[in-house]
């Protein structure tokens, strides 16, 4: 049995055909093979949430997904959030304006979770925001600015 397999995966709108080791995680594939280093690795056991991306429209831990499992999938990472004209995603703008990041390591996963939350629940309460991001650990901020950014984003129309 080959230790490598070909995969065809669409990431941020572009389709890639690559040959990958079967044991390679999706996180490492994105970071090392596609050079999309915006997705971060914090624990490799699914707890910290830093590696969270969107897979076929739902958030997923890229550290717990094999790259070979992404064959045929559509992935969106933080690099894919910006618009065609290069403008930031509104959620990124709210994070920036609300000082919702310090070291920035949790931010990619936090953004993906926040965007999914507002898609499912456009007007969440503060408690619902905290619950939704409770699977994304942040060590710097104490979460308050992140919660405020998401509530601010919920108060406005998102593109």
């Amino acid at each position, binding site marked *: 049995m080959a230790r490598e397999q070909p995969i065809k995966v669409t990431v941020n709108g572009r389709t890639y055909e690559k040959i990958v080791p079967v*044991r390679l995680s999706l996180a490492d594939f994105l970071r090392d093979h596609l050079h999309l280093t915006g997705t971060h690795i914090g624990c490799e056991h699914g707890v910290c949430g830093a590696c969270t991306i969107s897979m076929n429209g739902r958030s997923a831990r890229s550290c717990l997904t094999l790259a070979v499992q992404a064959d045929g999938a559509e992935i969106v990472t933080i690099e894919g959030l910006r618009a065609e004209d290069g403008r930031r995603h509104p959620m990124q703008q709210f994070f920036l304006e609300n000082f919702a990041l310090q070291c920035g390591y949790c931010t990619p996963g936090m953004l993906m979770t926040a965007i999914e939350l507002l898609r499912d629940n456009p007007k969440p309460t503060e408690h619902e925001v905290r619950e939704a991001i409770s699977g994304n650990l942040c060590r710097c901020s104490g979460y308050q600015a992140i919660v405020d950014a998401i509530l601010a984003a919920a108060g406005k129309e998102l593109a």
Partner: protein
Amino acid sequence: MKPAWFDYYAPRGLDEALHILGDAGQDGRVLAGGQSLMPMLNLRILSPAVIVDINRIAALNRLHAGPDGLTVGALVRHADLLRSPDVREGWPLLWEATTQVAHMAIRNRGTVCGSVAHNDPSAEHPSVLVTLGGTVVVAGLSGRRELPAEAFFTGMLSNALEPGEMVVEVRYPRQAAGTGTAFVEFARRLGDFAIAGAAAMLTMRDGVCKQAQLTIVGMGEGPFRVRAAEDMLTEQTLGRKESQHVFAAVAATAAAAVDPADDVHASSAYRRHLAGVMVAQALETALVRAGGQHLG
């Protein structure tokens, strides 16, 4: 932490999967959601020689609610249950327990059958399956077999699968009229492994409990069904006044019945104590709901 090498297969049909698993025997593992398996591979707690990824077997992605019950195929994700109005309406215990599973990103990928097969002592699904009197459908090269839930869970992280077999679906019967259920758990943080939890089902008629099912989560050996407690409840009048007293006695019985070990998350004494607390809470809530109040 990177996994050791393995051979990887992603068959498109169940027969093919069973053949590969059959050949691999003890050295094979099924990969469905991967939310329990991948951490173990990454930490090199497990190094199976063969991984069979079942995500391409469309037939396993079946969630069906019918008059006979709910069928949950091996690829149904926790999140699929949460998004199903049928599940929320018809199997509220299952729905409520699923809200406690980890976090959204985990629920999006993790599967119900995967959780059942893994049988982590803190997991929600094994206890729910036992409490609802569910069935586990197992397939292997030698064919299919169906086990009642209690027979499937054989100890901590253990199940009744023979080498080469896999869980293809689980089934939950419809609950009777007049039934109220509740799933409660206690964890240090939301989504953490439960230190203790309880799944309770009370079927009431005219203020009398006709049937009680009670299972405790987190006691170390898998779902712990407390038959002694169920017996105390059956044919018991449970008005608002008596129930406090009865539930306290039931909780004490349940706490005395479990025998958890000490571990880094809790001492034996604390788990035992919490078991009682969870049982009391679950029973109180189940009774209220048996009166016709819906989840919301």
